[in-house]
């Protein structure tokens, strides 16, 4: 990057020559990069369309007419995914923070709570989400002998699994806050709870923003698994349409919707991580 001088003498001939050289170099590397990207894309494309089964695959996975016909139902289902996601995020934030808090409690009095929270995170980070979905989806209604909608049960299962992950991320963040911050807060007369809420947690969550958002991206797509309970979401909708047209294109439609949902979060995660890294390199704590 060329430094912008507000005043001072104009750059010398040597410096001007260097800048011209750097400009030429960067133009050249952009051209080389663009050319190699195009070449790679063309090669992949040629390879794919020349595979023996391409015509069949194209017909059964990438059929535009089926895509258009299936879109309304898949999109309708996708709205359910979004609704479940919204509630699950709130649930995960609350339960995850609570679990992280329990795991940071010190003192013998809190041993049972601490042990319980540890056992919870161990167990639910270990069980595959799909099993949790089955256990919650068919276990809870059987246990309580009531009818609960598939969406609600799916949301509960997601909250159970993801809060275990999120709790670990937040706990790592809490441990990463310098002890002097806690001491400074207590010295001002803040209570233990105020210290955690006003000083420790905000710093912990800021520091852990990239991994937390990463979990959010993972959850965005795992919302699609609630279809196993029978909720008519995007995946289930695609399944129904697939059966109707005897064509897999509806799944591709659903996949595209999930990707479109994930991309903004992924870009945002990149941006937040880069900003955090820059600030840390500048010497700021958070």
């Amino acid at each position, binding site marked *: 990057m060329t430094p912008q001088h507000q005043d001072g003498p104009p750059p010398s001939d040597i410096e001007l020559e260097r800048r011209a050289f750097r400009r030429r170099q960067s133009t050249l590397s952009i051209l080389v990069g663009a050319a190699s990207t195009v070449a790679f894309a063309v090669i992949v494309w040629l390879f794919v369309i020349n595979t023996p089964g391409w015509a069949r695959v194209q017909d059964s996975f990438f059929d535009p007419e089926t895509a258009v016909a299936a879109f309304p139902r898949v999109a309708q289902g996708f709205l359910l995914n979004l609704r479940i996601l919204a509630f699950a995020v709130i649930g995960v934030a609350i339960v995850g923070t609570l679990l992280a808090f329990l795991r940071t409690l010190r003192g013998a009095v809190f041993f049972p709570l601490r042990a319980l929270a540890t056992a919870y995170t161990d167990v639910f980070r270990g069980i595959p989400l799909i099993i949790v979905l089955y256990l919650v989806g068919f276990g809870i209604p059987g246990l309580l002998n009531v009818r609960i909608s598939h969406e609600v049960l799916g949301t509960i299962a997601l909250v159970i699994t993801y809060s275990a992950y999120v709790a670990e991320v937040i706990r790592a963040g809490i441990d990463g806050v310098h002890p002097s911050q806690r*001491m400074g807060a207590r010295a001002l007369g*803040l209570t233990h709870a105020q210290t955690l809420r*006003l000083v420790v947690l905000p*710093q912990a969550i800021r520091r852990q923003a990239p991994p937390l958002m990463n979990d959010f991206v993972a959850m965005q797509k795992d919302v699609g698994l609630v279809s196993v309970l029978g909720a008519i979401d995007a995946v289930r909708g695609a399944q129904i349409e697939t059966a109707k047209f005897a064509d897999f294109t509806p799944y591709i439609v659903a996949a595209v919707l999930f990707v479109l949902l994930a991309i903004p979060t992924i870009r945002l995660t990149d941006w937040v991580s880069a900003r955090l890294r820059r600030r840390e390199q500048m*010497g*700021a704590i*958070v």
Partner: protein
Amino acid sequence: MTTVLRVEGLRKSFGSAAVLRGIDFELAEHEVVALIGPSGSGKSTLLRTINLLEPIDDGRIILRDADISDPRVDVDKTRARFGVVFQHLNLFPHLTVLDNVTLASRKVHGVPRGVAEARGMELLDRIGLAAKAREHPDRLSGGQQQRAAIVRAVATDPEVLLLDEITSALDPLLVGDVLELVRDLAAEGTTILMATHEMAFARDVAHRVLFLDGGVIVEQGPARELFANPREASTQEFLRRFSAG
């Protein structure tokens, strides 16, 4: 003169290491007392036990006739009566400078935000940081951060201001402004107990000096007197090494 703080027979160990081995002293209203002594002599620990950040093993700490080392006192309320500035990492990096300064007023003393901020701006204006009030601490120099930390500590009008080597992590060029602020606060009658390695500053500003070595107060007296004519051999040795640099 009214006694604000009285420490009696204070003892504190970390494991088998006895850090404070029976400390007795008094601090009067408006008095400025400097704690000097080699590293590891117990200065920081003494300051932390006084505002109850460290539990003590024996002795008493009396703040205006009340024994605050009694386990029945409300620790959080008592801490709020002190103002504390540490060596470094004082400010909360996620809050603006103004929010740092007003945090204790708002959350501990229940002052409405408007009132707390008006007072906060007044204090920041005084140290020339009013323009930085809405910035985060990482935009301030080390010296500006320490001065902001000092006004944060006095924003709640504490009964005693405890300063723990507040300039020892600073660039030498930035020390002057910080000491100037402490000098002003002392001149206004703030009661201050400060651990410091700035001997010239201690001699000029402190009324009394306590020389701490090996967890006991070896010698104490009026600042000028103690610096001019130290009686104990260890005090003489310490001051000689200090002036030799």
